[in-house]
């Protein structure tokens, strides 16, 4: 359905030109990359679209330091189907991405647009668990950990996301993603991304991130600490799951009550860590 409030469509041909529109921080202006969010959810005050489709990069590139760089215009399908990204952590990215919307959305929605939005996302918990870095332009080219980008509110200031990079994972590292929804094509009632890197004797890097509760992603740091100390034994996994349940705030709503979501926190944490453990055990 047409958005009658949108009256101006701009298509800059350079990053600097795009920035000149964004810099003043006009609240009625939005960047357009894929478009899916704005065609449906543009707030009524939005009057101007700045299409960065010709300005930003769509490629996905292996960098010399072993990281994988995704241009902000890479579609969710591009990310899902990329062979190297698919190997990360045992396949956690396509495992997650197949649940994001549906192909008709993924074939055009961009990773940059999705991350800049950040809410109600299945993508963000996984990217956070993988210690993703974000690159953006705010007059100068900047880079930050995605976690900082959100924690420090950088996503709310005027900027243009230019790319994301997935760092190389250590050799003995695995990740997994699970989500729970009513049907296959549905926003998540709860999702979880876990990642464990094995150091010489015990894990030295544990990330457990839960999302859609309905706030943005939360880290289950108590649960992480348990795995960090005890490794991925059955007992530790169960203890971590219970700890996650205790520390993750769950809201209630018409789709699911807080109590049920908390139950899912425990169940999904346990199951996700079990998958990570299986992936670490298989060469």
């Amino acid at each position, binding site marked *: 359905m047409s958005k009658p409030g949108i009256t101006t469509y701009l298509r800059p041909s350079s990053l600097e030109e795009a920035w000149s529109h964004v810099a003043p921080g006009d609240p009625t202006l939005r960047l357009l990359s894929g478009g899916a969010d704005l065609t449906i959810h543009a707030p009524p005050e939005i009057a101007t679209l700045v299409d960065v489709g010709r300005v930003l990069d769509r490629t996905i590139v292996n960098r010399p330091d072993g990281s994988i760089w995704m241009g902000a215009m890479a579609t969710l399908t591009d990310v899902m189907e990329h062979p190297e990204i698919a190997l990360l952590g045992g396949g956690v990215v396509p495992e997650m991405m197949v649940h994001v919307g549906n192909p008709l959305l993924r074939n055009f929605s961009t990773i940059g647009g999705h991350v800049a939005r950040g809410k109600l996302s299945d993508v963000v918990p996984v990217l956070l668990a993988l210690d993703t870095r974000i690159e953006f332009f705010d007059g100068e080219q900047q880079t930050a950990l995605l976690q900082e980008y959100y924690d420090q509110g950088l996503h709310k200031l005027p900027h243009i996301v230019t790319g994301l990079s997935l760092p190389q994972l250590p050799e003995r590292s695995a990740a997994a993603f699970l989500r*729970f929804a*009513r*049907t296959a*094509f*549905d*926003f998540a009632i709860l999702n979880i991304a876990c990642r464990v890197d094995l150091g010489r004797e015990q894990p030295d890097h544990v990330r457990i991130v839960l999302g859609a509760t309905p706030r943005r992603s939360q880290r289950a740091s108590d649960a992480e600490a348990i795995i960090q100390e005890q490794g991925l034994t059955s007992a530790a996994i169960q203890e971590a799951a219970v700890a996650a349940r205790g520390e993750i705030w769950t809201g209630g709503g018409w789709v699911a*009550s807080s109590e*049920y979501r908390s*139950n899912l926190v425990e169940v999904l944490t346990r199951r996700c860590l079990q998958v990570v453990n299986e992936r670490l055990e298989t060469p």
Partner: protein
Amino acid sequence: MTEKFEVVGTSQHRVDGRALVTGKPVFVDDLPKRPGQLHIALLTSPHAHARIKSIDTTKAEDVDGVEIILDHRNTPEKRYTTAGQGFPEPSPYDARMFDTKVRWVGDRVAAVAAHSLGAARLAADLIEVEYEVLEPVLSIDAALADGAPVIHDEADALDVWDAEQNIAAHVVANAGDIDLGFAESDVVVDVTTETQYAQHTPIEPHVVSSYLDDNGRLVIVTSTQVPFHVRRIVGRLLDIPIHQIRVIKPRIGGGFGVKQEVLIEDLSALITIRTGLPSQMVYTREEEFISSRTRHPMRIRVKLGAKADGTLHAVLMEALSNTGAYGTHSLTVLSNVGSKTLPLYNKASHLRFVGDAVYTNMPVGGAYRGYGATQGYFTLETAVDQLAEKLGVDPLDWRDQNHIREGESSPMFAALGEGREGVEQTITSSALEECIRRGAERIDWAGKRGDKRPDGAWVHGVGMSIHMQGSGIPLIDMAAATIKMNDDGSFNLLVGATDLGTGSDTVLGQIAAEVLAVPLEKIVVMSSDTDVTPFDVGAYASSTTYVSGMATQRAAEAVKEQILEVAAEMLRTEVSELELEDERVTTSDDRTVSLGDIGLRSFYSENQHQIAATRSCVPEISPPPFLASFCEVAVDTETGRVKVLNYVAAIDCGTAINPKLAEGQMEGAIANGIGYALCEEIVFDEAGRPKTPDFARYKIPGPLDLPRLETILVESYEPTGPMGAKSISEIGINAPIPTIANAIYDATGVWMTESPFTPEKVWRALNQR
């Protein structure tokens, strides 16, 4: 038993298939826009219950492009029903085109017609309405409570059962002596179930386009299941003679009952009449969810009494139906809760059905595939499983022992019809025993029943249910067909019958082709144009194949007689010496003329006359299709998730005129039923506003949410049906709730009594044990 057919019984391409797969502009909103066409936007009530104190449209009228605004001040006051039913409609006349009171969030307040949709919407937002907000009644219990606000307090409503008590309709039917029946029973179970608000969600929303033709007649092109009822109801409402109205149904994108309603045609018609301009209205998806029609939520109690040997002896069914703000279809859906369920187990001699359809300030229940039987079978078929358990017998064997057979009857046929007394009938065809046997084998009932096969947190179970429906409404439904012959030996088949995607044009064409001994391409089917096609009540009550099909068969037989008479002239012999086969008429000594020869001669050469016939059908009985439904589920005991692993539906629809179309009807109905069982639900806030008015929040099943559905067509032969056919379109949707509920019990020992069986609900039920 079944004859050998040439065209019937084959899965021909649909006659409208080419247009659909190549994307031709055949739906209402695809048709070329007429010059000056107005767009219509609706203003609806934000309150569940309120009086309109004043409406000020001055600002709205000033919006550039606005042509006319309708509200209660300038539209007819007469009461009517929007129900697309035959006359006199068995629904209360409790609706006004625009009322001075609004009775649900989404009720009509005003309609704006403007030269662009944007202008119409902008203007609608500028209409200023002052409401006196009244206490809303948001549940059956609230509506029936002492001192509840009266929702229909108007003086001029007709046929409301008890407006003061908020009861739109009331039905009672008895056979035998129910108290005696229970007193004589050795084993009794008592089960109450509740079903939820759900919506049909045809992918094409309601859409209508009206214009005045060159002679000033009103033409309404609309996505409807009931073109003739639309013509009559709009005519009566707007005081336009029927002969001044033409209603055309082009291709429509699904209906499932929600288009058995005169929902928006009146708006477009009146706007066109008043302005002289063409007008169009398309419902938004949100309006589809909130301001159209829904499934009736119901609370139903079934008490069963049986003898120690398992014979069913007494059945009590008490139904409370939430009919929402208006009583359209309230009486008939309520009646069907009992009339399509209770005859199934005819061994009981003591039966009682009592039901009330209750008004609430909530969305309006209407016709929805299954039509009350869907809700009733939940209670009945889970009560049957509970009874079997109490008797210590396999529920399959219990059903085998107690279900109705060919040649048998039930007192409930006569006692309970659609909103009135029913019609006595005996079952003239049934393959239910074979349906049960084959379905049970396919699902591996014997191997899997009672075997939880635990796998981590998952447990498994199988469940079953059996069903009957009907084929049309006996003595009330009428369908007609006209067939005329062309000079190349082809035929035009004109039927009022309404193809809503069901494939009825194709099925009826196949019936005609069979009788007239031609391939299907030689039957040119035209349907649902009130100027051209003869009358048909429309697509509901599973009537098209059986009733419209019989009218088609009769018309074809009459045309065949005329063909043989002409051939007899041409071949200088008696009709009794002739056979019509393979597009030719041949004598016993092999002299022959083609249908083309006959057609040509009848137009141009000798004894010229139009070979044609119109025939009607009013069915005397409603021979039920029968269904045995089985499924296997896995339940995740930690999350409550229910996965349906396999689903088998063994269906007796008599002769399947087009097997793939018949299977398609079953598969679609079951898919919809699975959604109703597991995930579909309209959720409301405390003020009666729906929180789920889009596909993002209201989930219908997609391909990953459905099991492999296997349909087994088990043929019987219905002697009163065209080529032995009965109906098929509705019955499938009634099965998944009870089949799945019974399977969940087998897996977990927990009875689910409230649909949908969402993961959280199942989890809570598991944890309450």
